[in-house]
């Protein structure tokens, strides 16, 4: 069955609002994806019908909220092939990675140890490791990539020894659009005794994710790139690892019993969820995942793959355009000779085309590729051929405006 992009597009109200009087062409879903009506409805419903707090009241609204909240956690677990008690709800990928750095990292990384991050990492899967290593007297090493932005597995193998405690890798690069071979990385890291933390922020909305098949130890992602509200995120961790990890934030909700001088903490995942959670956001994330389950995801994947090839090839064929790396999915970052990415993004915006410009929170990767910044077009399931045509047509205007 083929995807009907027009029908999909109608399910996302934000796409129906013209920008600068033009049909809205949204090519920045790698930054934030729009919400389908069913997610918006689910969130609104929380504020009206399930407006109580979770896990503490016995009144009807609290029970309704708790039921919907726990159901969302179960949906999330099924979505990535984990168990509900392995799903820690966070504010996003960044918080999820910080949780691992602060809790697992401080307990396991010491002086002389090594943490490895790949050269592709977003700041959120790099800066927490810089901080951990600085604090613990450990060393951060960067696993190199080739010019196509593929991870150099042989080089990574050469870096792994028993001093390496952790390997951090993104599954789908938010700049290069390359897909990392997580199962191979995990096997290599495990052989050296290291754990693997995967940034799945870009991957979850494009690839079928099964944490068991990936073989990683922690998997982090955000709701807002998965058609769910901002301020939602997930850390999946192996049960045995989570069970042995200390709390990193403390307070209400995460304790079993409290005396004035001590507290007994709850089991995971609650141990890592201090305070009242983002109830409406989490229920919205559950609704987004249920929405995806109603779609033919194989057909969506084919649709996205075809659009991505067209986008990549059309951009590469433009005079003066350099596509960064050799993107495999979802995103294409590029530069245009004689035009700064910010100027490109400003000019195409006035044609109703939204793209990202800058370093996309991956400044070291841009320097590795010899550029300060890039423009980036990224796809989601609601994009279509007209979106790509609009970007290409608008890029011609960039040259006219900047002469």
């Amino acid at each position, binding site marked *: 069955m083929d995807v009907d992009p027009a029908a999909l597009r109608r399910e996302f109200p934000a796409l129906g*609002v*013209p*920008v*600068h*009087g*033009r049909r809205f062409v949204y090519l920045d879903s790698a930054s934030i994806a729009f919400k389908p009506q069913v997610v918006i409805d689910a969130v609104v419903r929380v504020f009206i019908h399930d407006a109580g707090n979770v896990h503490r009241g016995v009144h009807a609204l609290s029970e309704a909220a708790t039921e919907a909240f726990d159901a969302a956690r179960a949906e999330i677990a099924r979505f990535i092939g984990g168990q509900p008690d392995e799903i820690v709800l966070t504010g996003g990928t960044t918080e999820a990675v910080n949780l691992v750095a602060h809790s697992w990292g401080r307990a396991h990384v010491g002086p002389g140890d090594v943490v490895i991050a790949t050269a592709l990492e977003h700041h959120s899967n790099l800066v927490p490791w810089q901080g951990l290593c600085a604090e613990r007297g450990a060393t951060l090493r960067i696993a190199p990539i080739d010019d196509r932005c593929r991870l150099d597995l042989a080089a990574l193998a050469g870096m792994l020894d028993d001093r390496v405690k952790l390997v951090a890798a993104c599954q789908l690069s938010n700049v290069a659009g390359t897909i990392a071979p997580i199962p191979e990385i995990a096997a290599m890291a495990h052989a050296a005794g290291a754990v693997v933390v995967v940034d799945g922020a870009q991957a979850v909305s494009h690839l079928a994710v099964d944490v068991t098949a990936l073989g990683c130890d922690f998997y982090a992602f955000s709701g807002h790139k998965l058609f769910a509200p901002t301020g939602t995120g997930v850390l999946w961790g192996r049960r045995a690892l989570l069970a042995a990890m200390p709390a990193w934030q403390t307070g209400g909700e995460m304790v079993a019993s409290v005396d004035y001088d001590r507290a007994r903490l709850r089991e995971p995942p609650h141990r890592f969820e201090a305070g009242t959670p983002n109830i409406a956001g989490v229920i919205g994330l559950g609704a987004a995942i249920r929405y995806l389950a109603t779609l033919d995801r194989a057909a969506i994947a084919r649709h996205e793959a075809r659009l991505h090839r067209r986008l990549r090839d059309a951009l590469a064929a433009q005079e003066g355009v350099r596509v960064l790396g050799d993107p495999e999915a979802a995103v294409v970052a590029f530069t245009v000779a004689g*035009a*700064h*990415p*910010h*100027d490109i993004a*400003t*000019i195409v915006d*006035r044609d109703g085309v939204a793209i990202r*410009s*800058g*370093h996309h929170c991956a*400044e070291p990767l*841009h320097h590795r590729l010899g550029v*300060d*910044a890039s423009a980036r077009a990224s796809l989601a399931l609601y994009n279509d051929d007209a979106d790509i045509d609009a970007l290409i047509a608008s890029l011609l*205007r960039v040259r006219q*405006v*900047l*002469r």
Partner: protein
Amino acid sequence: MSDQRAPRTDVDDLYQATIVDHDRAPRNLGALAGATHHATVDNPLCGDVVTMHIRVADGAVQEVAFEGRGCALSRAAASIMTTMVQGRPVDASRQLATAFEQFVQSAPDAAIPDELGDLRAFSGVRRFRSRRVCAMLAFRSLIQALDSGT
């Protein structure tokens, strides 16, 4: 609620000929021998960097040059600025920076002060909220250099 997110405006008003000219052929680009003051300012939006070199003597900016890569707006602002503060007393240079910052942040249809000279070409940036910082980067590095005192 309007069914449009923003009124349509023309990017030609943003990228006026003066700006494109200074972007294509920036004046006073490079190092400055004998400079007395330096400062480097980042644009956190994109990682762009402007470094300003100034030679101050007799209470005036005698020479000024800038380095760094950036968008058309930040390059043109730096280039035009250097042509305008060259030979200008330090106090008057600071006043120009203040006037330009107020201008960039003013309403899109507000009066354009004559004292801004070629900087008046930035009138269009007033409609592009996210790009104001690009226009102001050069003056901010100028002020920081003057404040640095070295």
